[in-house]
């Protein structure tokens, strides 16, 4: 649990530090008596210096040496004393900690004391741990300056240029921080205590923060550090395998592919199953990043900079998420970006470079030309024989032969894949004082995919500033500009799908004719599109510009009450360019350019009032707020056809131009509040509520109310637990959350939509029936949990059991087509998700060797508990159904019972349509001899039985080695690609396994059907293509080395780490395809389908982290 610890450490340290500084002030400010008569001012100063320990600084000559002062005080504070002392002089003063600066009255106050004039000292010391072993690499920082160093191998440090009396902080990961006052000629011996408490970690909760010990809900936190960072485009991928109960994957291994994130299962059918993303307090939109359908959904989150992220919190249960009310059913992902830290001034530069490869490219084995032709001709023979055809008959099929004689087969996969290189650099400049904090970050990266032409460039800029103008007013802003340009390749759902159009070609097919022209796909010469032609003759890219900005002002009254107003904007501009030139199959003859753009404006105005107070043993914190959010989308599309030549690529020259624009608005207004009451940190009660009004529902159905209540019991704070090195907290929560994502903006309204034109005249037609009854989908969520820390923090565990009951499921309910439509958006049915999550983190030290491990495992069981009055499966898509009692994501397919071995076994109804021995015997559920829709069965599910991840960190001196495994068990993958390459007689490649083992006679096989030209029976959507998707993946392997200070200090560095990382080094799975952790569709109803999806790449990378 290194990440938890790190945080914990920092925050504890700050906490301790605050206490410490307060103590100093307390010591400095006791009433003080002073007595001097007719002495020089210099003398008076010396006297105060001696009596109080404060140190005075001033230029020579600014104090009048002839001035005599007289002052007698009793029980005045030092400031009051000084006020009087200087009242009759030309001087003023400034009291800062232990230091008093004197200046001439008419001087500019803030510049009164040039630093070089101050006498600096050097301090020295040693840092050891509880066992008196020296601590290497501890940070030694002079407070409120950038002056810092780290301890060397012997635990020694020397810090130069220290202002006498300054506060020096000493910190090290995993230990409590300490602070000392700088004095000359003192040899400091500092003993750091190992940090054991995890309960003081600060956790970001909705609209605020909270100490971990007060958290009564299920919140998981991932801190992004050396162990957890990966080279990914999409922040959600950082969570892959890290958090119990959270699954996340991308649609494919192509760059910027859309993500699917699920927190505690899928709680909705179609009202959106994506969690709400909140970045630095701003709920962002998460529309797909692409406009033109290029075969897969792209991520709009891929535009964000992952290196700016400090931590990601996942609000998993209702008690934590309900304050985000309407969008919280699927959990909330709270992303916090880095900020400047008080007393630091850092320049951090990270550079990395590497390459990625298509993993296990030879895994899928296809028949070579010889085998292919043999198998194909066997199918022709079977056909001619079955229908009694001989040469000359109509319908007689003739044998094929290799049209290219003995030319070698084409390696199509080699033609479309590449070794993609990448380069990434980011730099951040951050720092701060007590009042002002800033962070400036930039990032540039360029990454090539594993498919030819796939490339993504990314630029991010960020600036974050906050300043406390007065003790009661703080203002701040946080802006980021993000840009990506993604050169796309066709995804798996497009007719020009990259892998499909390569691997499905017959083994002897070739991309180029002898004269250098392309073979044209879809003709007898080449069955599938010529993928080489497709990749060469198209130009497709996607540009995303995203501005995230937030501005706030906060009024504070003491530490008790604050009112924060913020205005945030999330503005996303997408430009999608797809050009098929005249030589491209989709070029429509003379070229086609689809030019699309979209502007999404998401504005949020928010007022939040926070109140904290203590009454004896009770402490109270309360939050009350209002927010208004409005999201406006504007789309424009210009589809031009007919270009003079392929070098023209703007639509102004197109001979035919079709254009359209559209606009949609959605608004939501919310009231929310939270109160946390705790007694001695022992018993904690938290209640939240949120009321949301959404424009997606009719007026009287518009408002949804989402309360939650949670209890926490810190058992370890009880008297009977005193003195034990164990911490236990029990949590229980109930809450209600809502959902309205995924549905249309105007779904409740019956609409006559425009655009139904005829003969160039505008027309309107009923496009939607509407449903005035449409209202919020809500989920009742229950959570019970334990947080347990053992052996002074060496082991800590988090256990949660939950149940989520969703009701009024928003679903585009299929209805009979005779009504005029095929579905109506309705609130139907209920669903239940139940699960268990377990996380265990350990941290053991064996001398200089450290082992940290984080293991998580979770299970979730989804069940549809009602669907209006339907008991029969509602068939959706081509291979799924929704059925009461079954999981969402369950397959609805035919079941193979074997192969008919004799013609006599074939029922008459099937015999009549040409089924014979050697064909697949499907389970005939209704036993009527006919195989039709009624014979499909619910079988298997895309949902896993259990899943999680296991990270191990090994540290020895400055070396750190991380091994991170992820696993999923019990999920079924539906692999339609197999049905294409096992299908006889369709001029497409065939799996070697199927060609070699095809049925040839009774008893030859009960698995592989016969070869049969024109077969339509053997490739039904069936369990033949349903494969176990369980896997263990070596997600990342990282070896890092931190250079010791004695090497880097002389060259002016604060830190230098070099590392190498391998991502996806191996994958253990029985799945016959490349990657079971991808999915063509990101819709939870249809996940787990692999149609030749590009797998996740295998990436090798080296990099350096440099800190000035």
């Amino acid at each position, binding site marked *: 649990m290194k990440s938890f610890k790190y945080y914990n450490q920092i925050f504890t340290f700050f906490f301790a530090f605050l206490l410490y500084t307060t103590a100093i002030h307390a010591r400095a400010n006791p009433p003080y008596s002073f007595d001097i008569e007719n002495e020089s001012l210099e003398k008076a100063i010396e006297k105060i210096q001696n009596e109080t320990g404060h140190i005075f600084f001033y230029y020579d000559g600014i104090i009048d040496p002839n001035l005599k002062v007289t002052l007698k005080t009793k029980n005045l504070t030092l400031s009051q004393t000084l006020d009087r002392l200087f009242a009759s002089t030309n001087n003023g003063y400034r009291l800062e900690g232990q230091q008093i600066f004197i200046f001439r009255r008419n001087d500019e106050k803030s510049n009164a004391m040039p630093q070089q004039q101050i006498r600096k000292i050097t301090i020295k010391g040693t840092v050891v741990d509880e066992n008196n072993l020296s601590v290497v690499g501890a940070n030694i920082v002079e407070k409120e300056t950038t002056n810092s160093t780290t301890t060397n191998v012997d635990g020694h440090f020397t810090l130069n240029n220290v202002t006498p009396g300054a506060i020096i902080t000493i910190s090290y990961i995993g230990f409590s921080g300490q602070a000392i006052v700088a004095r000359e000629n003192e040899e400091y011996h500092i003993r750091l205590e190992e940090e054991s408490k995890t309960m003081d970690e600060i956790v970001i909760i909705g609209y605020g923060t909270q100490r971990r010990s007060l958290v009564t809900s299920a919140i998981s936190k991932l801190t992004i550090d050396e162990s957890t960072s990966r080279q990914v485009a999409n922040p959600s991928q950082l969570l892959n395998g890290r958090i119990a109960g959270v699954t996340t994957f991308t649609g494919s291994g192509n760059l910027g592919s859309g993500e699917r994130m699920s927190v505690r299962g899928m709680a909705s059918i179609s009202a959106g199953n994506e969690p709400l993303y909140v970045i630095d307090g701003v709920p962002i939109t998460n529309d797909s990043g692409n406009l033109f359908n290029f075969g897969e959904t792209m991520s709009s989150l891929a535009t964000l900079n992952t290196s700016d992220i400090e931590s990601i919190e996942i609000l998993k249960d209702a008690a934590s998420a309900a304050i985000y009310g309407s969008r919280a059913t699927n959990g909330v992902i709270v992303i916090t970006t880095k900020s400047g830290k008080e007393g630091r001034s850092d320049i951090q530069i990270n550079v990395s470079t590497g390459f990625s490869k298509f993993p296990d490219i030879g895994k899928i084995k296809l028949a070579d030309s010889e085998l292919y032709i043999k198998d194909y001709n066997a199918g022709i023979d079977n056909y001619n024989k079955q229908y009694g055809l001989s040469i000359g008959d109509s319908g007689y099929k003739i044998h094929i032969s290799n049209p290219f004689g003995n030319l070698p087969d084409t390696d199509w996969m080699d033609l479309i894949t590449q070794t993609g290189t990448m380069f990434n650099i980011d730099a951040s400049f951050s720092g701060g004082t007590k009042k002002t904090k800033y962070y400036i970050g930039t990032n540039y990266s360029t990454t090539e995919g594993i498919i030819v032409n796939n490339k993504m460039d990314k630029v991010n800029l960020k600036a974050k500033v906050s300043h406390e103008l007065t003790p009661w007013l703080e203002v701040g802003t946080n802006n980021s500009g993000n840009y990506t340009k993604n050169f796309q390749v066709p995804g798996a759902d497009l007719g020009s799908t990259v892998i499909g159009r390569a691997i499905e070609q017959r083994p002897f097919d070739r991309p180029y004719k002898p004269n250098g022209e392309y073979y044209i796909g879809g003709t007898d010469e080449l069955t599938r599109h010529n993928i080489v032609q497709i990749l060469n003759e198209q130009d497709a890219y996607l540009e995303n510009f995203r501005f995230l900005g937030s501005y706030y002002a906060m009024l504070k009254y003491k530490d008790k009450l604050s009112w924060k107003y913020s205005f945030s904007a999330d503005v996303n501009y997408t430009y999608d360019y797809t050009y098929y030139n005249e030589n491209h199959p989709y070029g429509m*003859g003379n070229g*086609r350019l689809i030019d699309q753009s979209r502007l999404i404006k998401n504005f949020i105005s928010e007022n939040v009032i926070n109140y904290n107070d203590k009454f004896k043993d009770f402490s109270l914190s309360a939050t009350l707020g209002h927010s208004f959010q409005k999201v406006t989308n504007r789309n424009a599309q210009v589809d031009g056809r007919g270009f003079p030549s392929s070098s023209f690529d703007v639509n102004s020259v197109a001979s035919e131009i079709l254009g359209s624009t559209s606009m949609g608005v*959605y608004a939501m207004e919310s009231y929310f509040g939270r109160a946390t009451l705790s007694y001695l940190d022992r018993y904690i009660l938290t209640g939240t509520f949120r009321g949301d009004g959404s424009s997606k529902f009719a007026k009287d159905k518009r408002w949804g109310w989402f309360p939650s209540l949670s209890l926490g019991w810190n058992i370890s704070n009880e008297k009977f637990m005193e003195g034990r090195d164990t911490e236990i907290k029990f949590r229980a929560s109930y809450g209600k959350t809502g959902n309205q994502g995924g549905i249309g903006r105007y779904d409740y309204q*019956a609409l006559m939509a*425009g655009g139904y034109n005829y*003969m160039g005249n505008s027309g309107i037609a009923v496009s939607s029936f509407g449903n005035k009854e449409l209202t919020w989908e809500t989920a009742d969520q229950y959570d019970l949990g334990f947080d347990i820390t053992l052996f002074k923090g060496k082991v800590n565990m988090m256990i949660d059991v939950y149940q989520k009951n969703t009701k009024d499921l928003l679903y585009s309910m299929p209805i009979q087509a005779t009504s*005029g439509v095929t579905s109506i958006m309705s609130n139907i049915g209920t669903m239940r998700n139940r699960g268990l999550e377990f996380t265990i983190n350990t941290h053991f030290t064996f001398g200089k060797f450290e082992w940290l491990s984080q293991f998580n495992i979770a299970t979730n069981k989804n069940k549809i508990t009602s669907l209006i009055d339907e008991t029969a499966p509602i068939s959706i898509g081509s291979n799924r159904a929704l059925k009461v009692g079954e999981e969402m994501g369950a397959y609805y397919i035919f079941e193979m019972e074997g192969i008919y071995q004799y013609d006599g076994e074939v029922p008459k109804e099937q015999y009549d*349509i040409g089924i014979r021995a050697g064909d697949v015997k499907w389970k005939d559920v209704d036993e009527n001899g006919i195989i039709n829709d009624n014979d499909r069965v619910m079988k298997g599910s895309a949902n896993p039985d259990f899943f999680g991840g296991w990270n191990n960190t090994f540290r020895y001196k400055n070396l750190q080695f991380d091994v991170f495994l992820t696993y999923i068990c019990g999920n079924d993958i539906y692999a339609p690609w197999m049905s294409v390459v096992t299908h006889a007689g369709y001029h497409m490649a065939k799996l070697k396994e199927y060609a070699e083992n095809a049925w040839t006679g009774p008893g030859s096989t009960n698995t592989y059907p016969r070869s049969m030209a024109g077969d*339509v029976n053997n490739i039904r959507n069936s369990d033949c293509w349903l494969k176990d998707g369980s896997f263990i993946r070596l997600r990342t392997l990282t070896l890092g080395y931190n250079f010791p200070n004695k090497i880097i200090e002389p060259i002016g560095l604060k830190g230098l780490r070099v590392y190498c990382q391998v991502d996806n080094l191996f994958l253990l799975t029985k799945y016959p395809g490349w990657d079971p952790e991808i999915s063509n569709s990101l819709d939870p109803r249809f996940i787990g389908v692999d149609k030749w999806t590009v797998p996740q790449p295998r990436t090798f990378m080296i990099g350096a982290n440099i800190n000035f």
Partner: protein
Amino acid sequence: MKKYTLPIICLICCYSCSGELDQYSHGAISPEAVTEKDIPAVRNGMYSCVQNAPSEPSYIMFDMLGGVLTTGTGNAKDLINSTLSPLNSYIVSSWNGYFNALYQVNNMLTISDRFPYSETGQLARGEAYYFRAYIYYCLVTRWGGVPILRQNTLEKVSRNSENEVWAFIEEDIENALSILGSTSTFYLVSADAALALKARVKLSQGKMQEAADIAEGLITSGGYKLDNFEKIFRKTMNSEIIFAFENLTEESSINISDLFYTYGHPNKGQGTYKPTPEVIALFVDQDNRKSISLVNVAGTECINKYPSGQTGTDPLIISRIAEMYLISAEAKGRTAGVSRLNDLRKFRGLGEIYPSTDDAYLTAILEERKRELMGENFMYYDLVRTGRAKVELGLLDYQMVLPIPGKELQLNPNLEPNPGY
């Protein structure tokens, strides 16, 4: 002051935000908001939906099932077998599409009821009756008896008998004829369009005399005469077409050419369906329809009646005068009808024929229909209604109608499936 802060904020925000939660579409209006002024737009919407909603494959379904087309396997039977399944997506999209079109047509009738004095409303009413008859003709020839919906309904309806559907079609055609007149363009529904449909409907029911009379009436009306394929199928003014959907590229989702041309053709297409060798063999060189009917693209014969490929879309012809020649020839019988058949053959560059038996005559008629109307959605039902489908296409008894989509049967238990599927 502070204790008033929250109420004040709330007040300000309520004031400013409450109206913002009423958001309405920028590309649509509420059906209740339709006024007399909107009737022309609703009428265009009806044309658009009847044209587009049934989806692409429904315009060539009878060619797919009629032995005219084949996929990669080169054999018509394979395509028929894979299509005739309750799970087939083309069967599903056709069924859904016709009922969606029907919804818009019934909606037009309802709206025209609300504005009885609107002239366009009345005209649109006539067109709506025509479209309803056309849609039901498409439904009954595919699925047999289907539910008759005089108004739109959300109820789970049961099927009417085939005869009831035919009677309903005839009733609608009469209603249409009582309103419709002539039009400025064959892209709009005229009384003649309704007559042409009526002739087809009568022929389908074996009401030969009536069919022949109507067809003859149109042939001799002087409004139409046979014209060259170069004009009919190349968007040129011609005297053939009685009614067609204009199917403009920007208004259409029906691109048949894309299904016929391969990527080897300059205009490009997916080339999903190719003519069967038997159909190709029907065209002799002197047949002046040949070059427009078929084209050889890089060694592959493709249907050439729809020329746009992926560059655009082509009109969808519903009725043209040549069909009336063939209806007349068939309905009048061998002795009386053969001259009409020969009129057509001569115009198309073929010689006269005089089959010696009624059976041979019917064979000749059907062959001529194949040559003339190939790719225009006729063949399957022609073979079914003449009782030749079983032998000629090798169909099973139950394959004389299409399966009702499995999903529809699941959603509406009152719907009887077509037996056998």
